[in-house]
């Protein structure tokens, strides 16, 4: 089977993701959070970086996956891999349903619709407290192990679990990008007007990628539930949608690795700053956003590739 060239730099990168086990064993729970966020950002990249859909409500799928996994675990179904699958399906179905609305709009109407749909899901979960626990979220359950490996206090299993799932989803994303479908998505992003003129069913393509992205976001949400044994209403919040957008832009959209790089930088920085006044955090992120838009429009990866092009 013809496979895409794995560049040596990529191999090095993925090997480095194993380093935290050895070099930073006290930070493994942070590392698994980073992996989960990276997966969430990767799912957003599929629709934003490759298909050009600006979504301010992507957390709806993350949260759906998280709640699905939580509800299963709370009702004594604690096997995580099947839980992951079911959570992915729930998020995917939600994404598929919403995609019929979303793909019909552009520009401000699209942004507002994704925002509104995300807020709707958040409010619905808030109100349906009998099912979701409302503002308190879901607690009182525990996912004890995955494939026989118990979730330990150091977070070793959690990080391994999140990392493997991230890697698998990354490989799938990569295949999508390098397939005819990936080319069609880029065509939609580059010039949505031209696509129907070459016989392309743009809306069908967009519905498909939106569903795939929702599936992946749902998997990320379920991972969060499994590794933290809790679901809070915050997983559906606008804050989460905004955060993942910032992370993806920071790393560089449309470059497959942008979400991962952005997640690493953002969450390490937040971890370091969290000790200090939270106001500082908002200030620096704001400044960073302004700086990225003005000086680094393609994020960190964009800046790096411009830099390397200048040197050759």
């Amino acid at each position, binding site marked *: 089977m013809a496979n895409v060239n794995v560049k040596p730099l990529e191999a090095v990168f993925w090997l480095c993701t194993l380093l935290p086990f050895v070099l930073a064993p006290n930070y493994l729970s942070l590392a698994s959070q980073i992996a989960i966020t990276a997966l969430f950002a990767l799912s957003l990249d599929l629709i934003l970086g490759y298909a050009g859909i600006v979504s301010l409500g992507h957390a709806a799928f993350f949260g759906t996956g998280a709640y699905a996994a939580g509800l299963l675990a709370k009702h004594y179904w604690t096997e995580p891999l099947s839980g992951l699958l079911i959570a992915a399906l729930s998020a995917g179905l939600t994404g598929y349903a919403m995609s019929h609305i979303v793909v019909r709009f552009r*520009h*401000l109407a699209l942004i507002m619709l994704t*925002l*509104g749909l995300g*807020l709707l899901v958040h409010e619905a979960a808030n*109100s349906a407290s009998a099912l979701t626990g409302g503002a308190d979220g879901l607690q009182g359950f525990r996912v004890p192990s995955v494939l026989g490996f118990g979730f330990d206090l150091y977070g070793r299993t959690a990080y391994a679990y999140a990392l493997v799932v991230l890697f698998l989803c990354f490989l799938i994303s990569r295949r999508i990008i390098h397939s005819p479908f990936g080319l069609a998505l880029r065509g939609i992003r580059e010039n949505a007007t031209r696509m129907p003129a070459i016989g392309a069913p743009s809306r069908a393509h967009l519905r498909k990628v939106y569903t795939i992205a929702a599936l992946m976001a749902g998997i990320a949400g379920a991972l969060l539930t499994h590794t933290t044994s809790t679901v809070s209403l915050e997983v559906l919040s606008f804050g989460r949608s905004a955060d993942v957008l910032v992370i993806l832009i920071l790393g560089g959209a449309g470059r497959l690795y942008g979400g991962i790089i952005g997640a690493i930088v953002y969450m390490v920085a937040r971890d370091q700053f969290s000790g200090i006044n939270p106001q500082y955090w908002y200030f620096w992120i704001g400044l960073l*956003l302004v700086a990225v*838009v003005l000086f680094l429009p393609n994020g960190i990866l964009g800046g790096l590739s411009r830099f390397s092009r200048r040197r050759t």
Partner: protein
Amino acid sequence: MLSSLAGVLFDGFAYGMLLFLLSVGLTVTLGMMNFVNLAHCSFAMVGGYTTVSLMNQLGWPFLATLPAAFITAGILSIFLERTLYRRLYRASDLDQCLLTIGIVFISIAAFAWFYGTEQQSARVPSYLRGSLELMGMSFAAYRLFLIVVGLAITGILIVSLEHTRFGARVRAAVDNQRMARGLGIDVERTFMLTFALGGGLAGLGGALAIEVVGLDPTFALGYLVYVLIVVAVGGLGSIGGSFAAAVVLGISDMAGKYYFPWLGAFLIYLVMVALLMWRPLGLFGKR
């Protein structure tokens, strides 16, 4: 039953006037320059905190602080437009969103740093507190005040839009920027002044809002959603559209809180999604 309905309508209309003041600037600048300014509510905060400072530190009377709130917010708008915004007129929607969100974050941090994160209060004069008795129902004086101010400003806006040269230039620039330029209209200057006016009105709205919804540094994000809903539903560039959308939103919100409290904000978002699906360009939108 009827009196509670009247009460809901009254409160809702007053809230709608507040939302209109907060949103009208954004709809005009969005319609004119297609510039997505998510930091619009930060100007509202500027107005609000101006009022707070002037009243609590300098002892100014409430009504006197209102023009000050308007002017301060307006000046800051011009400053921001000249330094940052004009670089991004041709940038993508996403870039504009991100830059202005960045400014929102900075403004939240700045106000939290200077004023702290607690709710601010501004004691309105005694003649604006209490209520009026009319036809057996009582109407809160401050809400009446909001309605009066809202309608007055709407009137001034409509009159100046239709009957002044500046208004004509604004209408031309919103309708067709290229043609307006071709006619010799200085679109950049028109935009800067409109931006200042819109920011100033947001500042006024922020000052007026303290008594109704309070003021803390997260105001810029919290009310952004409502303002965006008003603008998107009303239609970009349409003052009448925002007026209608703001009133509908205000009344729906009050009705929701009163009759369906368990729904929470769900009703508002559902109404917005449904309206946008029916009319993606807004109720009165042109583009």
